[in-house]
């Protein structure tokens, strides 16, 4: 899969990893820069971005959302996805775990600069929102024929 490119240590179970991550964020925050719009790990919904010469694909892992409630907008190369999820819990029931996100969210993503904000498509299926943004043709690699 295309996102298996990192070398993150995945051999430990999640809770331990979460604590480790938090420690990392506190103590190793030193000189490394992070994106101005970057969010803490574990923020809902998680997002993957992939690119080909023709388009940029954004995958928003947002299960259990009414697609009509999604607000997706793009300004130049800044894509914003906002929405709300209701965890539809049950009144009076006894909860043992409540790990699922409940509430409103908004995420802003900086895409490569050559995306064309007029050519965007989005579809929601099985809890996955897939947004495709075309790139401008002038920046795509071209074969140049020798005459």
């Amino acid at each position, binding site marked *: *899969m*295309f*996102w*298996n*490119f*990192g070398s*993150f240590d*995945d*051999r*430990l*179970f*999640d809770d331990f990893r979460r604590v480790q991550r938090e420690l990392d964020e506190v103590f190793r925050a030193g000189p490394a820069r992070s994106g101005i719009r970057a969010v803490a*790990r574990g923020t809902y*919904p*998680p*997002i*993957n*971005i*992939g*690119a*080909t010469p*023709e*388009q*940029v*694909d954004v*995958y928003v*892992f*947002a*299960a*259990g*959302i009414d697609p009509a409630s999604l607000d997706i907008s793009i300004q130049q190369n800044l894509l914003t996805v906002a929405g709300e999820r209701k*965890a539809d*819990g*049950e009144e*009076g*029931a*006894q*909860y*043992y*775990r*409540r*790990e*699922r*996100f409940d509430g409103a969210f908004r995420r802003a*993503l900086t895409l*490569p600069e050559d995306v064309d904000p007029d050519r965007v498509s989005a579809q*929601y299926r*099985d*809890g*996955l929102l*897939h947004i495709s943004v075309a790139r401008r043709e002038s920046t795509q690699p071209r074969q140049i024929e020798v005459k």
Partner: protein
Amino acid sequence: MTETQQVSKQEPRTVQAAADTERVIRPAVDIFEDQSGITLRADMPGVSRDSLDIRIDRDTLSVEAQASISTPEKMEALHAEVQSTRYQRSFSLSGELDTDNVEANLKDGVLTLRIHKRAEHQPRRIEVQST
């Protein structure tokens, strides 16, 4: 069963699962109980009905699924917060739950499992009889 027993039973399994499979995602869940049973909800975006595998083996409930995500060929990752397409999580069940009476429903990537309690374990009101 006490909390500590449950934990010591589950941990080796989790470590094992993480060690000998590829990267898996542990889906976020909500679990709640009412008088007639337990409801579990799990977030598994990208999963369709055919790629979902729910098993109950004696007292272990395990949920596994594979997300299918269509990606263009030769795609290059720019940013990835999700680094696997495989979901896996398991739970230990207790005896009063009727493992033959489980309903599963998947909608928009959210799995809802309803596990009913055995009839004899549902709370009953006890009438006081006068003699």
